[in-house]
């Protein structure tokens, strides 16, 4: 598969999840594991351009896929607009849910560049945060939507 633009090839045990492969084999520890029931969204990455919870896929299912993780979002020093918005809106505290949030929001804005409040809340349904109360996360989504729309 291709991960953040780099071709990678490894043998993996059949039962290995995509998230385990990213973290343990490739050392991309920005993708986090926050639950074991596919509900927290901390492990969200993009597979072939779609936001996917990487705990819901066996690594074999991603064979040959284009995978993008949080480590591949910035272009050099320049943060992705969603990363930038999360930073400026104080949309993160402990930061554990943040990579998954950012990947989910980037996916949401790709599908729906100008989401309503309701769309945002619905779009964040699969990502849990314990610190922020989501107030500033919703704010960051709106700001990123404007930045991306205006770019």
């Amino acid at each position, binding site marked *: 598969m291709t991960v953040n633009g780099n071709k990678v090839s490894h043998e993996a045990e059949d039962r290995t999840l995509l998230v385990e492969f990213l973290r343990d084999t490739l050392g991309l520890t920005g993708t986090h594991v926050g639950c074991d029931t596919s509900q927290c969204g901390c492990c969200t990455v993009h597979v072939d351009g779609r936001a996917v919870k990487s705990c819901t896929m066996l690594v074999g299912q991603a064979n040959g896929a284009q995978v993008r*993780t949080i480590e591949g979002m910035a272009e050099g020093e320049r943060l992705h607009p969603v990363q930038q918005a999360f930073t400026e809106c104080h949309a993160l505290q402990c930061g554990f849910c943040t990579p998954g949030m950012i990947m989910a929001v980037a996916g949401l804005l790709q599908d729906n560049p100008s989401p309503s409040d309701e769309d945002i809340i619905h779009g964040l349904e699969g990502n849990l945060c314990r610190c922020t109360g989501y107030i500033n996360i919703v704010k960051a989504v709106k700001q990123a939507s404007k930045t991306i729309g205006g770019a």
Partner: protein
Amino acid sequence: MAAAFKGRREDRRLVSGGGRYTADWNLPGQLHAAFLRSDRPHARIVAIDAQAALAAPGVVAVLTGEDTLAEGIRNAPPMLPYPGRGGQPIKLPPRSVLATGRVSHIGQEVAMVVATTALAAADAVERISIEYSDLPAVIDAEAALAPGAPLAHPEVPGNVCFDFDYGDEARVKEIFAGAARITRVKLDSQRICGVPMEPKACLASYDAQQGVYDFWSSTQGITMMRGSVAGYGIAPDKVRPRAQDVGGGFGIRSGAYPEYIAVMIAAKKTGRPVKWVGSRSETFVSDHHGRAIRLSGELAMDEDGHFLAARYEWVCNQGAFPSGPGPLINTVTPKLTPNGVYRIPAVYGRNRLVLTNTTPITAYRGAGRPDAAYLLERLVEEAARESGIDRVELRRRNLIPKDAFPYTTPTQSAYDSGDYEALLDEVLARSDWEGFEARRAEARARGRLRGIGCAVFLEPAGGAGPKDQAMLKFGSSGEMTLYSVTGPSGQGHETVFPEVVGRELGVPPELITLRASDPDGPPLDGFGTVGSRSMGAHGGAALLAAREVVRKGLELAAKELEVAAQDLEFAGGRFRVKGTDRSLALVELARRHAGKGAVHPLDATADNAAGATFPSGAHVAEVEIDPRTGAVEVARYTGVDDCGVVVNHTLVEGQVQGGIVQGAGQVLGEHCVFDEGGQLLTGSFMDYAMPHAGLIGELRLYDHPVPSPRNPLGVKGVGESGTTGSLPTLMNAILDALRPAGVRQLDMPATPARVWAALRAAAGARQPPRG
């Protein structure tokens, strides 16, 4: 004034995947651990057979409770500096790191497998065979008090491990006997799971030559972790606790969990680093839980609605073992603030701490304060309804006036500062309290029940510990490292502590780097990040260290400028000869003296003895209920908070937002449930109702600072006050919405099912069936 918020120093790495949480650390040659946990609430362990597990592929070792006892690991005692009622000490049942003799709750650690991979360890756990002989279990705290109830531990007859009281029982009894009005409530502050987003994990290595462990875990501070480990019998100087990023604390990470000690022992026994990453399921059942208190209260008033006395009773479920902070946080808070923001001349309270066959209880955001505020503000609300006195007017009539500070409570606790009536006035104006009835009527026309509720509250914050230290060390080009034993988990200390120092020294905060709880840093005294104390205690110490730098700098600059120190003044980062334009920048002074020895002459350590502060707030919530479904929607929430001097508005607001929504989680859905057989029914995110985006849509917050005289910065605690306020505020609003439909009583969580059932029951009671 503060510049516009551009993001925290922490954020660059955290938004880029560069954070390093416990599970992100690895050591060469590390082994992996997995735990076998009790699948029953109370049983005698007849036999453990680990032979098949030991023979499984990749398995290096299997540890049981006997192995931990052989290592000299002992029962970690709770922090409890005082005895209970009648001078009685707390009764502690035996607890080992891995169970010995019997298991006392579902999820208790029984055995640990260490193997070459995490999967091999998990597979081998399945091969351990345990023969149990079940014992009767007790789950509910009030049931545990009943005569003849099963005993959670035979060592604790009656299941009460600590009986505590405060106040003047006889006087309160006398006042109640003659009072014109008495209001009573009984409430449930239900069991909550802390649920930091980072599941529990740890990594240990052991240096046999030095006898020292390096230990990575999610911690709320180095000295707390060392103190907690010492409780198990491992000397604090033999552990180097390590953490870079901590994925949430909320109180439940203030101490060392049994798994941590087992992993340390395994690293010592195998001679290799050992890593354990818990699953969310394990975290749900074994992270210590919060709240779990039955709250009863009585308030006595005269005819005019003046409060005369209050009496409280708390029955606190402590789970199977008293945790480190559990007994303290379930007794100290109600004693420190028994009258909340009101003048109540006499109080008496009794708190019984009860052992049951459930997961232990520890501090969880608020740690007794939301419970105290909830009880008192529900009492005041009901007293207003019963007396017919307007609920705002009743509060106003009894608030402690702003000229009464320092105010001493009937239990001899001294509030620092506050202006409660101003908070109340401001929140009423900001929330358009007066205009509410029109909104209620408009909602009624849409078939919705709209309600409004308020709470005026305070909480004790900070204090704890004689002093906290901070050290500023200079580098080669004027940059500084700030050492502190604070244990941040998202509060933004890396950003705001350098801001405190930078402002005092007149230098950009970027020149200062915080190293929090660094085991390789200088040894510093202090307590960790708990009890909303960090800014007052550690931030205050950082400020004093900066002042010490200035003091030393004056001496040093005087020599450089060839004047007497008293002829110099320090402002804007420069030492200036008074009345002249001759000056020397601090940074330049620091550069000139760098590299002349191990200690820079400007290096400074400061001690800060910060006292307890009492942040307060007045909050108003409006809710709408759909009577067809029972669903509660928070329409708007307004908070006016006195957190003392605000050092960084954005970070303070973030703390209050998070705190309010965390409280809203408890009010609207979160509930950690054990069934009668002691099984955890809410063991995953499928069953545990975590707050999602949109739980509170419109949240408006306003600072109303009244400086605290108890620390050099004038700050008050802020980490928990939002949670303290939102429990009573939201429940008062929900009951206000339900009252016209005849509902008088509802316990948290106000789930659609509960609200719907309450509405149905009230309708049934009002309209008896025909025929």
